[in-house]
């Protein structure tokens, strides 16, 4: 008789295995990531919910970079994108956004320090556009966000995060707080 695998032992091992399976599958499921909050299961993925943590923005960032569009949290782009943007401000998506040298340095340093370093933000998106990132396109695909939303006067463009994410400038993109305007 095998004394190691007695029925009670097998039962216990079975229960522990089942428990582990449940925990692991919940940890790897995408659902918990959608939440802006850092929950227990986020421990297992180390990205997503921390992507927009940052040191406070210098007032210059709001002043110089949020007059024409919202103040994008730096964690949404990799350092290479921010560096590329800051060295080409004269040709900034169709306009001249150039800054005084010391302002550009100050802002550039802050962006670099707080840029996204997690896996999903590692590659520079096309044209350094947040809205062209793979993860953005996936989250805002037609099944989730109807195509006609982008042309509504209240929204106008995917670059206008605050239209639907009222906490966007604070880095809050919590799925449960999204309100798509009519």
């Amino acid at each position: 008789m095998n004394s190691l695998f007695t029925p009670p032992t097998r039962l216990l091992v079975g229960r522990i295995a089942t428990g582990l399976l449940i925990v692991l599958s919940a940890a790897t499921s995408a659902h918990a990531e959608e939440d802006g909050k850092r929950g227990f299961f986020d421990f297992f993925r180390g990205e997503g919910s921390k992507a927009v943590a940052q040191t406070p923005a210098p007032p210059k960032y709001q002043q110089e970079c949020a007059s024409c569009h919202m103040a994008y949290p730096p964690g949404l782009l990799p350092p290479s994108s921010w560096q590329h943007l800051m060295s080409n401000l004269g040709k900034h998506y169709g306009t001249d956004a150039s800054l005084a040298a010391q302002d550009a340095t100050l802002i550039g340093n802050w962006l670099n320090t707080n840029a996204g370093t997690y896996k999903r933000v590692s590659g520079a998106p096309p044209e350094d556009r947040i809205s062209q990132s793979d993860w953005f396109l996936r989250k805002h695909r037609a099944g989730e966000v109807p195509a006609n939303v982008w042309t509504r006067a209240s929204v106008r463009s995917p670059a206008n995060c605050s239209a639907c994410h009222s906490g966007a400038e604070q880095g809050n993109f919590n799925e449960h707080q999204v309100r798509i305007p009519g």
Partner: protein
Amino acid sequence: MKTSILACLALALPLCASANPILESYRTAAKQENPAFKDFSAATGQKFYTTKVGALSCAACHTDSPMAAGKHASTNKEILPLAPTANPKRFTDAANVEKWFKRNCNDVLKRACTAQEKGDFMSYVLSVK
């Protein structure tokens, strides 16, 4: 006699005190640009404000009234009113005024604005109540 002189001064001084130093600097610049320069015109400024060049004009983002809050033509970002009567901070920081003239004239006109244009524009916006 003295009291009436004082009364006249009391009326005139506030008007002098409210002369905008930035506008005055454009006045000097306009004279240098064009020796035949006479004065700025709020009416010309209003026309300039609403004239479209291609798809854009000042009004495209700042709306038809400088008293109203505007909206960026591409991003929808809210723009605080231009007129000092609605937004007292406007036209108080010379560097800021020059920065936005540089950017926006380039956006709309694809060139720098002349001192005449800047002065006309400012005269109009400062006069709006």
